[in-house]
């Protein structure tokens, strides 16, 4: 396989003396949806945070041909790598519109309005609530805002950490529908999920993480059919 848009080689991440991620390697090819699945505490979120340069890591992380190892956290977005973090982390005291503006902080002001219209087309609910304070939105709306905010800079690769967390099944379906649409429109996606069933059903490929290591990888349908994955993550 050629080097993908994102390439992680022998990456380890430690918090003090705890090795949260141990020497993992994986690739994401342009145009793919790749998912990292695994139980709570397997190191999935740590992996995403390290790629986004919010956590120090050792090893090598390459994005679109360049190493990210010496890129500060705030400069990662400029390279075309955006993240919807775990727990959404929208700015609760700012309005919906201001949150989206922050998503476009690095893009020229002239293209911001156009990009915001684009996000509103995808999430009409956000347009209805554009001047509402983000902290007063429902959970599903907050997730849409977090995704919309990450899309404001037109990223090449969008990393999403547990977008289904805490949402009703109908909303989960809607969010995964949007992930498919984004991918069809050309955005490469790296998705972290505990909801392995939903994640594998949208993904092209998947990696299974367990206690900081990648223990299995393959095409999504192969993983869905694998007895080991079924037993551990799909409830039998």
């Amino acid at each position, binding site marked *: 396989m050629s080097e993908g848009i994102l390439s992680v080689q022998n990456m380890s991440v430690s918090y003090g003396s705890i090795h949260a991620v141990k020497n993992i390697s994986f690739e994401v090819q342009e145009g793919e949806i790749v998912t990292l699945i695994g139980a709570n505490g397997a190191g999935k979120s740590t992996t995403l945070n390290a790629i986004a340069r919010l956590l120090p890591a050792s090893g090598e992380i390459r994005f679109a041909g360049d190493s990210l190892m010496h890129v500060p956290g705030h400069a990662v977005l400029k390279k075309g790598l955006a993240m919807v973090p775990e727990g959404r982390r929208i700015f609760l005291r700012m309005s919906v519109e*201001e949150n989206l503006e922050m998503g476009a902080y690095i893009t020229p002001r002239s293209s911001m309005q156009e990009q915001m219209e684009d996000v509103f087309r995808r999430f009409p609910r956000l347009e209805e609530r554009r001047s509402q304070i983000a902290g007063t939105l429902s959970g599903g709306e907050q997730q849409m805002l977090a995704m919309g905010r990450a899309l404001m*800079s037109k990223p090449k690769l969008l990393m999403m950490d547990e977008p289904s967390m805490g949402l009703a099944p109908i909303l989960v379906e809607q969010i995964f529908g949007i992930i498919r649409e984004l991918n069809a429109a050309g955005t490469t996606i790296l998705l972290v999920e505990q909801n392995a069933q939903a994640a594998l059903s949208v993904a092209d490929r998947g990696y299974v993480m367990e206690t900081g290591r990648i223990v299995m990888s393959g095409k999504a349908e192969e993983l869905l059919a694998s007895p080991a994955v079924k037993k551990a993550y799909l409830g039998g």
Partner: protein
Amino acid sequence: MIEFIKTLISGLGLGSIYALIALGYTMVYGIAKMLNFAHGDVIMVGAYAGIVAFTSAGLPPVFTVFLSVAACTLLGVLIERFAYKPLRGASSLSVLITAIGMSYLLQNLALMIFGSQQQAYPQYVKLPSVTLGGITIDGITLLTLGVTALIMIGMSLFINRTRLGKAMRAVAEDRGAAELMGISVDKTIALTFAIGSALAAVASICYGLTYVYIKPTTGAMPGIKAFTAAVFGGIGSIPGAMLGGIALGVIEQMAKTYISPLWADAIVFAVLVLVLVIRPTGLMGKEVQEKV
């Protein structure tokens, strides 16, 4: 009645100075999550800068003002860069101790350079007092009120309307998420110190023109009172700092006039304790509700 109105106006003047200083405390707290106890001493440095520029160097008033603001802004940025930035990620106690140390360092440097004798701040702005309905108001007090009002309007617009101001609010709310937006947390914190210190310079000018005498510990008391004002208004809240500063100044002057000058400070701090018992987050403090 005339006495009451006069006391109120001088309270508003004093409160304006507290508010300008409190803004620096509250912005730094909100964005850098630290208490910069050296902030009061930046005012002292600003006042000495005014003395050096006008009295010693003979510069015109406009340049004196400019030089004071420039000196304080630079000092604030340097303090952050060399004393606080290396401690980013250290325990908040280490940062607090460093801030207290920085405060003493500035006071003692001033003591070495300017000596312990108090010096007169040059009265390079002379304004006639205004008499309205039998009440005479000092020109400098009116100037202080006007300048503070303009700064507060300007700060509100900056924080709420500009991209940079919104980025500051984003960093205050969630540093990690702000980094994900491409906002440099380091630059934002440096900018916060620059703005806070520039406001301290303005406070030093108003203070010098009103109270005249400057010594190395001049910044300590207004500093601690402005910190009180920031907590009183709800630390981290910009309107809170404005309101807290004004309220504190008015309470202090009222206590001086109607109770006793000796008791004024005790009353000011007692009011703080009372407010915090009733509303632990301060007058405008935010109780954040997180939705998961």
